[in-house]
């Protein structure tokens, strides 16, 4: 099981994802330069947080044209696991690998703080190690995390159980008080219909050790590891 962390110019959570996987979870992990079309035989690709190309145009709008994204798209279409975190989520939206778009946060300000998210689905490779309804404490750090989509898309997402995480209050209510950025239906993370591509605004790689005030983010990486291992086991069985 090997992870690849893509490095775009302006990625700045690449090292954090690398640390979480390589040092905390002790799993093989490599950086993949955005100019490369070779994914180094990785089993899962992470598009990390940051400000790819400065996010001067629209978040993720330029990064999606990086050479590496052609390979990521193909990898995803072949069923490979792709997780986009924060800017990575924004890139997946721009690339059309996930539905919807991001707007500026409702308060029009950057927000960095721990928030609470509820696990909505567990039958995905990104949440299979979690309990349905479990409340995770994970930080957000973004200006453009206000997830939005049209009604038909929202209906579709709900119908196919693609909403993986919703922002809630500490008590688990997905109301306005629990919504830090104005996201439609308190959506914090979604997956595609095939369930192998997911994106979320909160940063699980920042919640992987007790000293960082939470290690709830490990659940997401552990789920991915479990999914790949089980999949490989099935394939070889």
């Amino acid at each position, binding site marked *: 099981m090997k992870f690849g962390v893509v490095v775009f*110019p302006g990625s700045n959570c690449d090292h954090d994802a690398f640390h979480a996987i390589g040092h905390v979870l002790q799993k093989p992990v490599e950086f993949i330069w955005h100019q490369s079309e070779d994914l180094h035989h990785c089993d899962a690709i992470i598009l990390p947080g940051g*400000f790819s190309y400065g996010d*001067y145009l629209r978040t993720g709008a330029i990064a999606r044209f990086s050479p590496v994204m052609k390979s990521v798209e193909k990898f995803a279409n072949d069923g490979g696991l792709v997780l986009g975190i924060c800017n990575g989520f924004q890139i997946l939206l721009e690339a059309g690998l996930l539905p919807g778009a991001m707007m500026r946060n409702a308060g029009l300000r*950057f927000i*960095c703080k721990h928030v609470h998210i509820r696990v909505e689905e567990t039958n995905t490779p990104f949440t299979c190690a979690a309990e349905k309804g479990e409340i995770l404490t994970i930080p957000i750090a973004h*200006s453009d995390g206000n997830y939005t989509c049209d009604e038909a898309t929202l209906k579709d997402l709900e119908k196919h159980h693609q909403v993986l995480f919703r922002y809630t209050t500490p008590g688990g209510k997905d109301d306005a008080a629990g919504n830090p950025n104005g996201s439609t239906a308190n959506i914090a993370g979604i997956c595609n219909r095939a369930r192998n591509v997911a994106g979320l605004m909160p940063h699980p790689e920042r919640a992987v050790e007790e000293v960082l005030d939470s290690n709830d983010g490990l659940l997401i990486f552990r789920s991915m590891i479990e999914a790949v291992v089980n999949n490989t086991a099935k394939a070889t069985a």
Partner: protein
Amino acid sequence: MATAPTEVKVTPEIAAEHGVTQEEYGRIQKILGRDPNITELGIFSVMWSEHCSYKSSKVHLKRLPTRGKLVVQGPGENAGVVDIGDGLVAAFKIESHNHPSYVEPFQGATTGVGGILRDIFTMGARPIAVMDSLRFGEITPSKTTNEEEAAKNRRILDGVVRGVGSYGNCFGVPTVGGEVAFEPCYAQNPLVNALALGIARKEEIFLAKAKGIGNPVIYVGAKTGRDGIHGASLLASAEFTEESQQKRPNVQVGDPFMEKLLLEACLEAMKTGAVVAIQDMGAAGLTCSTCEMASRGGTGIEIDLAKVPQRETGMTPYEIMLSESQERMLLVAEKGREQEVLAVFKKWGLDAMVVGDVTDGGLLVVKDHGKVAAQIPAHPLAEEGPIYNRPVAEPTPGKESERDWFPFSADGTDLTANFTKLLASPTIASKRWITEQYDSMVRTNTLAGPGASDAAVVRIKETKRALALATDGNGRWCQLNPKVGAMHAVAEAARNVATSGARPIAATNCLNFGSPEKPEVMWQFSQAIDGVGEACVALGTPITGGNVSFYNETLGKSIYPTPVIGILGLLEDATRVLKVGFRKAGDVILLLDGAGDSDGRQKTGAKAAQEFSSSEYSKTIAGIVAGEPPAIDLVAEKRLIDCMVALAEAGTIQSAHDISDGGLAVTLAESCFGASGLGAETKLNGAANAEYALFGESGARVVVSVSPEKLAAVWTTARQYGVGALEIGKVTGDNALRIEYKGHGVVSAQVPTLKDIWAYSLERHLKIQ
């Protein structure tokens, strides 16, 4: 050899327009042996500006202690460097960006952060934390500030906060804290002091010395434009007048994405081993980087401006040399290996051009398409600028008497209402609304972010250690007594670091003052230097760098003298970080006092009133700013620091929070805000008035909470260090804060109510929902 013909003939009048005095002009003629051309005059004017040359402060700065056994690099390089063990060093420095932040708050603040970050990675260190020390005018209408002015101050604050956030967030360095304070004197001259910290392997530190005759000089990073010309000389080295808004073109524009690429590319290029020296182009841009590198290396540099990447066409040598376009670096590579360096910058999509080489003979030669545009001996230009021992005069103190001082309430008065008012005051209220706009966690090293501990704490992943950082500076106290005020700034920053569990090891300073041409300002400056020096010696924290910011005045009125001190601390065991919040009901609350028996320090009568009149409480409740800052006892501060480090190491205390703005009562309240459901029940006694006891701000005191079974161990440690440890109450589980003084309940309130006031006041004042 003749210099290139230029259109403008330089006269003493033109020199004066450049801020060059007649005497300085004479000095330039002597160094050159002729009249300078316009480009040369421009070069001299920026290098000899107050901002770049420290001409008024140099004679005083010499009195600061700069040596210590951990100091690897003291003042004079891009940043100070200290040894932090495990083969690693920390590079850190604080710098001001005050005037640009008033003229253009967003860009002023971004470029302030960008500049200090470049100073750090120029040394070969990867930035791991940023802090900001900010001062603004009052944001709520008061006796001194009308609504229109308050609204303007709020806009400045908003722009600065967005600027600080936008740069650090995009660059990918956590902004881990700092402080924000409000006084009317900063209304037209806010202070934006940015501190950055980085780490590097000891043997991989880079210095800015151009060595090796024939080595190529390489320009990297952003293209040069016309922005920021004379930022250092005309903007930073003159006071504001009514026309200051016209100085907007002098403010540079920041591009954090470019800087992020520059960081990665520079660190990667340094790893090739082909880089000999490197310096960022900050104030005075290409001028400063060329002549300083040559001067330090004892060499010369020759460059051709035709090779400098340019953003605009038709730029003159004068403009190119003086541009302060951001995100640029100048480096010297080993001859024959320049391709290795250029390849790295190409990979990161950055401009990198060989623009010249290191020469023998010590001359800075600037050519434009092969023609000499300027030719100046580098060393005299960089190091032999004018030095002024300006007149110093103590201002005649206004006569104060008891009538001018704070009138204490009668003992037994319920002070809850005043207390809640104090918690809501912008300087004391939580800065959550500000710090949540900063990414304080990126790089996942932040063990204590904004407000969690008295200092920000970041771990060093490859070791067991962590570094703590705090900045402090009370301008009001320095106005009342610059020497004592400056000592408090050092003591409080060091105490904050120790209260997080770390040992204070080194300091950096940002000295914000009015015009050095005023003898009273120079007196304040000289006094403050003495105070900083004395305190740094006593507390074992040598000054490793920093900057001086003069001319902080508008229409002839100076700001409060405001030395801001940043202290770096080392925590041997990163798991021992101490945080502010109480943790468990039933824990015992102790008041630790470096002066020993805390009762003995309580003042009464006129002495108490005089001291108390300089407090935040006196200002907020009675509108009185007078008297004297609390007396300072550096020996007591040192004892307390050593005791805190020992307690953290032993792991015997649950929480720790020092007593500063707002006194003991505010410290207790903030300690209750950490975990939900907790409160405190405390009983105090003493000779002083209740307001003095609850809200007095004398130093060397920390409130800690201790599990009952560890109490004996804590007492033993306290005794060992000569620190008083007075039991003042217990942590309770009933969500209430109660303070009794001499048997009377003086404060009684629900913690959630207090917390709401404290946590949300700032955004209510800012009228932002």
